[in-house]
């Protein structure tokens, strides 16, 4: 409700009126009813939370293709969504002990660096809508592979899910030695290199903040595949990462670009708040109902949709398609 109210307040502050079905969003240049932006946040937040992804990876193509908001302002507007959406989850995980700043810290520091660089890429090379959509298509292709993989394996959280065991397991720091850190959770332990985490955070940060994504779609597979960190520990790093990266990206778009002589790329603040209002509700519903959902089927279905979108975006870059999307 606070995000919804902020949407109306920022609309008046930024434009002097509430854009919607009759008056276009001045920066976005499109007419979209307020309820539709909220609905977009809600359905993408709900479905993507069910399959363990952030809303941005679906909200961004929906915004650029269906809602036709594809100029560079879409990126900071979506970053506002990726900043606000995980805050509820962040507070929840902190309460349940799925929280370790030694683990997340260097990754977040890398994200801050990436968030300072990515917006310059967006204002330069990626200002061209076709190049932007090509990169988005590649990101979607990567996510579709993850979803297909999960669908085939039939990943289920079950009794391994955090907080479902007896007592309150916490992610603890076992050893911190020079640049290495060993974390433990429910008997398992994993050693990670802080330098690698920082470099990973920075690289993913550049890509994600130039697109308008939270970065978990790249961080999660890296931590799972390279360091064998289990899925139920990963959010302790990716959720604070998405918040830190999005906040830095937003600040860079609004303040650092003009300070360094570039034109600022302001977000449609109201758009971001309306979408986040829906997104927070959607991910809350997902968290409450997740156990009853046939996850492999949903993974397969969303993986197919994501793959189809990826093919469309990538194909259109090389062979322009005869229809608008």
């Amino acid at each position: 409700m606070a995000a919804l109210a902020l949407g109306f307040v920022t609309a008046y502050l930024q434009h002097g009126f509430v854009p919607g079905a009759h008056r276009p969003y001045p920066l976005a240049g499109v007419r979209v009813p307020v309820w539709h932006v909220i609905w977009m946040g809600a359905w993408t937040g709900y479905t993507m939370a069910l399959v363990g992804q952030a809303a941005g990876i679906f909200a961004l193509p929906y915004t650029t293709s269906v809602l036709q908001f594809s100029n560079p302002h879409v990126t900071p507007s979506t970053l506002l969504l990726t900043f606000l959406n995980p805050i509820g989850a962040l507070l929840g995980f902190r309460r349940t002990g799925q929280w370790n700043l030694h683990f997340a810290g260097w990754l977040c520091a890398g994200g801050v660096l990436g968030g300072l660089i990515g917006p310059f890429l967006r204002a330069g090379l990626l200002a061209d809508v076709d190049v932007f959509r090509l990169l988005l298509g590649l990101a979607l292709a990567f996510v579709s592979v993850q979803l297909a993989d999960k669908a085939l394996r039939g990943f289920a959280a079950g009794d391994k899910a955090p907080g479902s065991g007896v007592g309150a397991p916490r992610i603890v720091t076992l050893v911190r030695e020079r640049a290495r850190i060993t974390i433990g959770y429910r008997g398992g332990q994993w050693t990670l290199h802080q330098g690698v985490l920082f470099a990973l955070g920075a690289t993913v940060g550049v890509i994600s903040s130039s697109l308008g994504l939270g970065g978990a779609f790249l961080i999660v597979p890296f931590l799972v595949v390279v360091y064998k960190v289990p899925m139920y520990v990963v959010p302790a790093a990716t959720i604070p990462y998405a918040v830190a990266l999005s906040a830095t990206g937003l600040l860079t778009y609004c303040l650092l670009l003009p300070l360094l002589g570039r034109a600022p790329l302001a977000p449609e603040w109201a758009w971001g708040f309306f979408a986040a209002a829906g997104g927070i509700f959607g991910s809350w519903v997902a968290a409450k109902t997740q156990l009853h959902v046939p996850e492999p089927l949903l993974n397969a279905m969303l993986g197919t949709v994501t793959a189809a979108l990826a093919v469309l975006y990538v194909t259109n870059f090389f062979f322009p398609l005869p229809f608008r999307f």
Partner: protein
Amino acid sequence: MNEDHKLLAYLPFIVLAAAALVAVYHISVFW
């Protein structure tokens, strides 16, 4: 699985179908 849980299992697919319908409505009215 009781009736409520059955409904929850169908919910993501109902939501996706609704999203597709809303997208078609938007394209037909605003494009």
